[in-house]
């Protein structure tokens, strides 16, 4: 871990190369640092995040959703959620300059997971950091098998539609399962085409449906989603016999610095104070057990 | 012949919300109604039950433009009620503060509200596009006034530093020196003011109105005096209450005649207090004193006066050793009744309190605009009638713009006016 960049709080200027509308509230930004040196040097682990600094407006943490194997650019999927992200959606366009610092956080322990099956459980925007692992696997065949469970309200709100549809069609050792709470037109179309891969309901329902078909006992599980999701998914995974020490999750807190100074992301009690930005954002189930308040 | 009604639904470039209705029957004006229709603020009822010290800070909320006048009038009334002494240095500071407020309020009125009339613009922003220097001069004066309100009053608006007995904290020597330097620079520079006021047209004859002011000192006093020669320590002898069903402000009369207060009354009744510089300005401008527009000329003179006074008081203060921390003044009595008379920028302001066991039990406040209300009607009345007489016919827009200009010349502050409550 550490800082690839010189200035701790300012970051390095980067140009927006492309903006793609993913849904009505999420956009994908492709960026490249102005300084080529940094582009070459910039290296990260899936699960890490950067601070996205908009001059004069503010700064926020955002997970990197491209893969470290694809160098020279950086992709960030940003949801319109508040002050700065609203500004970004409305005013940051192709050619805009923003400042990026990082990568920060621990990232997923990929070495440990090598050659095992992996289960990715994503809820809503939680797909963003998990896409990084997905792409990494596509490029390196890091895991023996990759099972993606992606729960989203409806097709309209689904991220990375093109990529996921490609994978749904069938890809060597990548298996994609989707769950929709509401069946809109897109969802209906998907159900028609890939009936076996789509479940109506929550992501936990999808996991349940696949009980017996996915080797949960040997798998690593990684999850990311809205705060309310964790409790239920962890319970389900344990129920499906995923080993407790193989459950990983990436969490979110308010962050003003990203480097363990500002104190906003501190969680835990007298025996277990943790900084989400330094000790996380990737945590294990063990961390959750020993740190009160981590997922609730 | 039928009655015509001309109305101005909302006056512009005045402080607060007011409207005017003029009823005309043939060549005669039947009635003029100035309606001060801003919502009620109840500021005489609200501070009841508070500790006496806290009252000036709350009643100052009557008006932002002259908050310090309210706070000082309130403090003076409480000092009388409870026999609280005021140190000489605090008296000087109060005077300085009042002059600062006078400067701020008059500069706002003359440069930002009246000047567009003189140069035929809709507002000072348009004026600024054509003539930066005039508006900048206005800002410079307003800023100085506000600076004084900040360092002495505690904040440019609604500062809480003013309490019965003086101040919580006196301004530091540094801040005095800083303002002194700024004031010196302004006094040395030559103002456009006089040139501008020379172009200001006359309007609004004031026959029949009685001028009222405080006695003793240019900005305050223990008694009220009038142009009819009457004087009294009891404001109720001078001012008679009256409620109009169409206005939220109670108006006041003197012996059945409309009263007028403000710069014009001060100059007419107390010219001898003015400095040479202020009198020079008055003499250099030809403007008939019988028109209310003369009020604006007097305001101009008072701007000059305020600058001179501010300079001399600051000079004196910078020589004194004014320590910032003071012992809190204490009351000698716990109950009592007291009046405070101040010349707020817009004229006579009366605060009258009853205190029981250091807690305020009753309050009565009379503000200048409420007193002026009847005179405004009278001036518009007179003017419109002359207009019809001179021109024969009547153009509604002319009437409206004239009436607005006349009322504006009074510098009404409607926010202030809507709290009148006489103790029965």
């Amino acid at each position, binding site marked *: 871990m550490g800082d690839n960049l010189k*200035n701790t709080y300012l970051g390095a200027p980067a140009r927006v190369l492309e903006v793609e509308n993913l849904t009505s509230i999420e956009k994908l930004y492709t960026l490249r640092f102005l300084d080529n040196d940094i582009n070459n040097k910039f290296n990260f682990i899936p699960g890490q995040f950067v601070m996205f600094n908009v001059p*004069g407006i*503010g700064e926020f943490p955002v997970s990197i959703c491209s893969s470290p194997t694809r160098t020279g650019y950086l992709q960030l999927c940003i949801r319109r959620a508040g002050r700065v992200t609203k500004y970004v959606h409305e005013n940051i366009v192709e050619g805009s300059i*923003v400042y990026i610092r990082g990568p920060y956080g621990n990232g997923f322990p990929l070495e440990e997971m090598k050659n095992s099956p992996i289960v990715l459980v994503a809820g809503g925007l939680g797909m963003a950091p998990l896409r990084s692992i997905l792409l990494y696997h596509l490029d390196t065949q890091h895991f023996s098998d990759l099972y993606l469970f992606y729960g989203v309200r409806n097709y309209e709100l689904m991220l990375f539609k093109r990529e996921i549809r490609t994978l749904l069609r069938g890809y060597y050792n990548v298996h994609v399962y989707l769950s929709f709470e509401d069946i809109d037109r897109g969802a209906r179309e998907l159900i028609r085409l890939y009936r076996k891969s789509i479940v109506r309901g929550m992501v936990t329902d999808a996991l349940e449906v696949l009980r017996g078909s996915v080797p949960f006992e040997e798998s690593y599980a990684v999850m990311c989603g809205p705060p309310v999701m964790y409790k239920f998914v962890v319970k389900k995974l344990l129920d499906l016999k995923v080993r407790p020490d193989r459950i990983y999750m990436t969490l979110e*807190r308010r962050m003003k610095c990203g480097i*363990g*100074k500002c104190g906003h992301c501190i969680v835990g009690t007298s025996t277990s104070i943790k900084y989400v930005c330094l000790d996380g954002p990737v945590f294990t189930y063990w961390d959750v057990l020993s740190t009160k308040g981590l997922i609730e | 012949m039928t009655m015509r009604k001309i109305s101005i639904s909302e006056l512009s470039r005045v402080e607060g919300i007011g409207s005017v209705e003029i009823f005309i029957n043939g060549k005669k004006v039947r009635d003029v109604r100035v309606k001060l229709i801003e919502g009620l603020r109840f500021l005489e009822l609200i501070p009841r039950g508070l500790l006496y010290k806290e009252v000036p800070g709350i009643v100052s909320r009557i008006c932002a433009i002259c908050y310090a006048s309210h706070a000082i009038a309130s403090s003076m009334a409480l000092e009388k009620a409870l026999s609280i002494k005021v140190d000489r240095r605090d008296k000087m500071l109060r005077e300085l503060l009042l002059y600062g407020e006078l400067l701020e309020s008059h500069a706002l009125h003359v440069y930002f509200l009246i000047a567009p009339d003189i140069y035929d613009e809709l507002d000072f922003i348009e004026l600024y596009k054509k003539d930066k220097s005039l508006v900048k001069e206005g800002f410079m004066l307003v800023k100085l006034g506000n600076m004084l309100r900040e360092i002495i009053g505690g904040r440019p608006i609604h500062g809480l530093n003013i309490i019965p007995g003086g101040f919580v904290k006196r301004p530091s020597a540094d801040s005095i020196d800083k303002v002194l330097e700024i004031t010196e620079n302004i006094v040395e520079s030559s103002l456009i003011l006089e040139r501008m006021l020379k172009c200001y047209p006359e309007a609004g004859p004031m026959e029949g109105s009685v001028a009222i002011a405080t006695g003793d000192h240019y900005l305050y006093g223990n008694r009220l005096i009038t142009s009819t020669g009457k004087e009294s320590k009891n404001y109720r002898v001078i001012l008679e209450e009256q409620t109009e069903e169409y206005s939220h402000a109670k108006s006041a009369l003197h012996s059945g005649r409309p009263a007028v207060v403000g710069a014009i009354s001060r100059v007419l009744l107390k010219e001898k207090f003015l400095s040479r510089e202020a009198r020079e300005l008055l003499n250099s401008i030809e403007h008939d004193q019988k028109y209310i527009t003369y009020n604006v000329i007097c305001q101009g003179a008072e701007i000059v006066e305020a600058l001179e006074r501010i300079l001399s008081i600051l000079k004196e203060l910078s020589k004194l050793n004014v320590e910032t921390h003071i012992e809190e003044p204490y009351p000698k009595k716990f109950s009592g009744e007291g009046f405070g008379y101040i010349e707020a920028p817009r004229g006579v302001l009366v605060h009258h309190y009853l205190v029981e066991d250091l807690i305020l039990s009753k309050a009565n406040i009379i503000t200048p605009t409420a007193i002026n209300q009847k005179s405004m009607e009278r001036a518009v009345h007179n003017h419109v009638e002359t207009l019809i007489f001179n021109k024969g016919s009547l153009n509604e827009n002319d009437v409206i713009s004239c009436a607005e200009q006349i009322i504006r010349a009074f510098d009404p502050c409607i926010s202030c006016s809507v709290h009148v409550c006489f103790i029965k």
Partner: protein
Amino acid sequence: MHYKKLPKEFLEEFINRLRKWGEVHAPQKKGKNTYFFSRLDDPSKVQIDYTRTVIPPTKKYVLRPVEPLMLFHGDRAEEHTLRTTKLVLFGVHACDINALKILDRVYLSEPRDPYYEIRRKNIVIIGISCMPDDYCFCKSMGTDYAMSGFDLFLHELRDGYLIRVGSPMGHEITWNISDILEEVSEEDIEYLKKFEKQRLSSFKRHVDISAMPDILDLAYNSRVWERYSERCLGCGNCTLVCPTCRCFETYDVWLSVNTSMRVRRYDSCFMVSHGLVAGGHNFRPTRLDRFRHRYYCKSYFDPIHGINCVGCGRCDEFCPAGIKHIEVLNEVIGEIYGR
């Protein structure tokens, strides 16, 4: 350790000589009995036996309450450059010196905070011994004595001060002013022993911290938290004055239409927005959550530096609701012990 003695009559001279190593800042008085560190122009103004300052000097001078971080002109950004002066903090208490070590751990761990680092490097710390008042409980926290973290530390003697020299910088100072220093005598050591004994027996408040982190953790659902959080105003005074609390907020301020400045300022975990994340979810939605969080954060047992609280008593002294940190802890602990 290296020891020297400063005779009392040379105290002012000593302070004046310190100016060679930087601007001297020392405890001074405000109002009736409020103390704060600020530049000392007149050495006779120093409040040498002050109780505690509002903002701890060790926090105030390294982590400014409000500090510009960078400037933006359109999308051009530039770092706010620091012009630091060298400072000598004269009269720092042991608890604050120990607290600075905790701040150091946070701000000087990688990636370092550049603003903190520059300021930290430019500070000379001169400690001074003190007698506990009603609020102090540093003894319980093991922070009542500074064994490191200072350049010089003065201990009151009858006729002077025993100086402990804690760093090469400290040595440079004593070496330079050796003309006003003396050697420590047997009598001085006796006095020091007596002083320390009296100091240690003067504490009125105690808490047993040996198993505290675990006990508190187990008492997560204790009613004590609830009872006190009903009294707590959530004003954050306790965190702002704490020498080990260091949360900051950042925000952007417009200087004109197109230029702006990013600023950081002290923040407090008592603010509702502190635990808010995207989507409006709040991780500490109630005052109870926030109240408890502070106690947990302060009572965290760090494997290297021990407990996150140094027992300076500031939070107690400045709490408008009169909530006493140590009373709350003792009540929670007592409850688990089955009282």
